[in-house]
């Protein structure tokens, strides 16, 4: 195994290096300048190609992937927006890995992000010793991407103050960056292949507005939670397997429990059960990523603290950690869901009965 894969989580280009290599080999379609793969191969990398043994990595909205790829070919940047946990970052990582061969050029936005993270900073020791030279300049991931004609990712852009975000405006429109310290006329022009994928959450607490000047320079794509239960289940199970493999943990019954879990998440997320009953939606984010976390934790509990058979009870005990985060009312909403919807299902299915019994024992407020 590649030494770097031993890391807690390897970047997409390493995790899927084999697939990328196979795709590149089979790829004879024209490539936009600076791209490692043709747009169609990028699409196959993300949406899967059984013939080449490439697994599907993004579920639920294929046209969105098409639009995202095409946007990256244009002069516009790509802005992925949507609720937390909808795989925006994963998608941007996959796009970066497939198009530029790296997903490592990334600005991780936060309240502390400043213009240096977007333009360039200085190695102050060298700056004092040599003055403003090329050697003393510390390029940002954005500048690096411009120089090498690659995709730079900007995570959580709305966590940055608007004036910092706006440093991107001229970079996106002029595709160049002035470096006046290195000479009056010194301008770094972006090489073909350069573009920006930003991810943003527009509705979370503590995020900033985006200026319309900046918005105009992006094509927006909204990533919605997966609403097809079969897709979501497939995804949850796949990610569970990925997480359990390095830990050499095996559990039984994950298939059925994943179905129960996805059903519960879909019900609580949409405020309506598959049978058509209405319910109060918790404020907490019930994303697919959270579902994977719940299933993972439930599997570990089953493996290490139980007999290795995953059941409804394991899920019930883990789910409260997801729901009881934001608002105390959420506990009541979950309780109502358990008391009415789950109870009825418990009468028909053993698995739901386990879930019901364990959930009744929780302190949900």
């Amino acid at each position: 195994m590649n030494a770097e894969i031993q890391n807690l989580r390897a970047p997409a280009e390493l995790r899927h290096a084999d697939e990328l290599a196979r795709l590149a080999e089979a790829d004879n379609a024209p490539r936009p300048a600076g791209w490692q793969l043709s747009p169609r191969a990028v699409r196959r990398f993300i949406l899967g190609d059984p013939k080449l043994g490439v697994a599907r990595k993004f579920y639920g909205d294929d046209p969105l992937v098409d639009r995202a790829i095409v946007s990256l070919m244009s002069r516009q940047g790509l802005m992925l927006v949507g609720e937390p946990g909808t795989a925006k970052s994963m998608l941007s990582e996959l796009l970066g890995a497939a198009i530029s061969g790296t997903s490592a050029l990334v600005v991780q936005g936060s309240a502390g992000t400043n213009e240096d993270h977007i333009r360039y900073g200085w190695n102050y020791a060298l700056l004092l010793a040599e003055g403003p030279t090329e050697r003393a300049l510390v390029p940002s991931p954005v500048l690096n991407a411009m120089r090498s004609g690659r995709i730079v990712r900007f995570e959580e852009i709305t966590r940055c103050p608007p004036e910092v975000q706006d440093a991107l405006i001229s970079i996106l429109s002029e595709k160049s960056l002035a470096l006046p310290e290195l000479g009056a006329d010194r301008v770094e022009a972006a090489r073909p292949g350069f573009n920006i994928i930003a991810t943003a959450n527009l509705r979370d607490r503590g995020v900033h507005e985006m200026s319309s000047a900046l918005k105009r320079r992006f094509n927006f794509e909204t990533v919605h939670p997966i609403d097809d239960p079969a897709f979501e289940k497939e995804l949850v199970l796949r990610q569970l397997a990925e997480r359990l493999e390095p830990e050499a943990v095996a559990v039984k019954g994950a298939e059925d429990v994943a179905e129960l879990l996805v059903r519960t998440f879909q019900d609580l997320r949409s405020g309506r059960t598959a049978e058509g009953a209405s319910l109060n939606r918790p404020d907490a984010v019930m994303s697919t990523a959270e579902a994977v976390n719940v299933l993972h934790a439930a599997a570990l509990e089953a493996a290490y603290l139980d007999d290795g058979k995953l059941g409804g009870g394991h899920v019930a005990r883990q789910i409260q950690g997801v729901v009881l985060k934001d608002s105390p009312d959420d506990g009541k909403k979950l309780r109502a869901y358990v008391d009415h919807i789950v109870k009825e299902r418990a009468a028909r299915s053993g698995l739901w009965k386990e879930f019901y019994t364990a959930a009744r024992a929780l302190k949900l407020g």
Partner: protein
Amino acid sequence: MVDPAPLHDPLRDVFVVPVRHHSPACAAQLAALLDQVQPAAVLVEGPCDFDPLIPLICDARTRPPVAVVALRQLDGAARRKRATSYFPFSAHSPEYVALRHAHGRQVASQFIDLPSHARAMLFDGEGEPARTLQGDETLFDSGDYVTALARDLGCRDGNEVWDQLFETRIADADWRRFFADVGQYCACIRAATAQSVMETDGTLEREVQMRALVARARAATQGPIVVVVGGFHASAMFGDHPGDGAPVPPSGSEASSYLVRYGNRQLDALAGYSAGLPLPGFYQHWWDWHHCERANGATDDWAGTLIGGFVAHLRGQGRAPSFPVMLSAIEQAKRLASLRGRPLPLRDDVIDAVRSTFIKDEIPRAGAALLQELHGWLTGSAIGDVPPAAGSPPLVEAVRSEARRLRFVVDDGEIRTRNLDIYRKETHREASRFCHALALVGAGFGQRTAGPDFRNDVALDRLFEVWSVGWSPMVEARLIEVSELADSLPEAVIAVIAERIAALAEQGLGRNAEAAIDLFATACRAGAGESAGAILQLVEAEVIEDAELRSVVAALSDAVLLRRGHKVLGISDPAPIDQLMHTIWRRVLVLLPELAAIPADQARPALQALADLRGVIEIARSAGFGFDLGPFDEALARLEAQDLAPAIAGAVMAFALLDGRADGQALGLRLQVELAGAYLDAGERLAFVGGIIAISRELLWTVPQVVEALDAVVGDAEEDDFIAMLPHLRLALMPLDPGEIDRLSTIVAERLGISPDALAQVVAISEDEALRNAALDRELARKLEAEGVA
């Protein structure tokens, strides 16, 4: 794997062309096929009883979208329970292209499906009356085969699969390959469909008919025959079918059909129409571009033409995006098409491009307003046209020409706002009546958004009536439905009103004069005019059965108001209304003696009815068509002699005074008796006065004994009694307006010998507070007395 259906049967020299309804690519390829094959006959899937309409469909003045609408009787149902179904044609319908080809070359053409009245055509797979007479094409979108194919091709649904596989080939040179592929695709869909489904939804039965008519045409024609059928049926047109019987002949009496104008909005598969492609406006643009612009070499930029068209549409609403955004969308659409392996951007590429580039924000799951606008634009609002002699029923012609005369636009489906100056302009009044009439008929032509409401006495100060109106094929379709009952709009109104009167009993409103006259008034407002007499008997039948005085009086009031305003309503001969009015009046007289049986606690509605009655009598008298009051007075006199509830007794007394049968003296005596009565409840003591005032307030000042009696009661009352009486006194005097209150207070002041101003002081405290204060005052007085300091 499914064997591809052959396109040509060399033994019979029959070409069976599999098509999808309304597909531009199929239409274009079919045109090429017809040009090359030069058939001796063209047979088209469609009800065979529509054959007489073919010349109209092919008439040079016919401009699609149009539809044949068929009215059929449902088995054993009530007379008016009918099924209305459509067989639409757009400019890019293969069927339309085929019929036009045959017509232009004087080649025989006919429809080969079962007659529209056949059972298999009447109901869909679920046993509901079918809305479309074209075969159901939902299998193109939702079948297992198509779903699997969509997944393989990376398409989101069956429509995108169709676009990807076939619409992109609209300009292909090889029609044989094109139709071979369509045939293969449809054969696969058919192979994935259960035999039982085809049995229940009538598919197999229809195919027997199609084969039989093809065989008959073959026997009668020399030369090649082209048969145009839905792709689903193509494979069934070949091979031996020994069990087939003779074709089912059309019957002239069981169905009637008309060629009518149709609209893109109704053609939209997304709107529930099961045969055709979603967003027909898009395919219209696609067809037009290939047929006109591309053919003329005007422009080669399809994406630019389409997206530019949408931007122009937005500009009309003052919200067009900037030029760079438009360019960016065009570029995005082209690149999406190229990524998806299409030579030109199709429907989903264009929608995706606009979605990516126009909207700079998160798009909620429910969608964004701009995308809805795009959907609306891609659906289109075009409405076709049919030749004047299209044989549409007289009612449709009459309404259409009336609409044009009143300057309503009937050439497109746009919704427009129309302000009608109904007080000052006669034509606007006519337009208002026209709108009311169509609303009554249920044609869905317009909706009144503002205006005076005479019926409920609301917003009478508004001078304009505002209507939001839009002509649509559904308006015509509804008129066609009604056309069996009427030839003109006023007649249609009457027919509908007659139906509603008949239905009143089912709604629990049988024998209700008010409900019946309300419908009659509605008919008059809707311009039924002279025809209103036709439902008079029905209304009268309801009136003479009504046992409620209140509703009969309300009906009388409506009738009197109608009579008074008959000219404005366009009724030149008031005789029918007079007749109705007098019928209701007689009913009132019949019901009057029953007042004797009403107990005191239920007297209020009856009192209200009597009060309304007096108002109606006054209106009638002032308008110069008074009632014969002799029998009325007699009835009251007989009532007077009986033991009545106090309020009603007061009312009857008031009528007697007005009529001169009683005088102030008698009233004063009666009042003293009533007011001094040993009623426990103060309210009952004042009920008699209340009855008088309800009927005739003016008695308070024209007959001094009333005030005298009241004064005596109030003056003699103990403090507690007075306070208990006060609310009832107030209730009794409530009908008085401020001027009358002044007048009464002047009389009271004169009696008390004080200045009237002293009584007219405004005290800004609530009634509750005043009562509390008075009680407090008494308490204080008692205390002071007890303390010996009073």
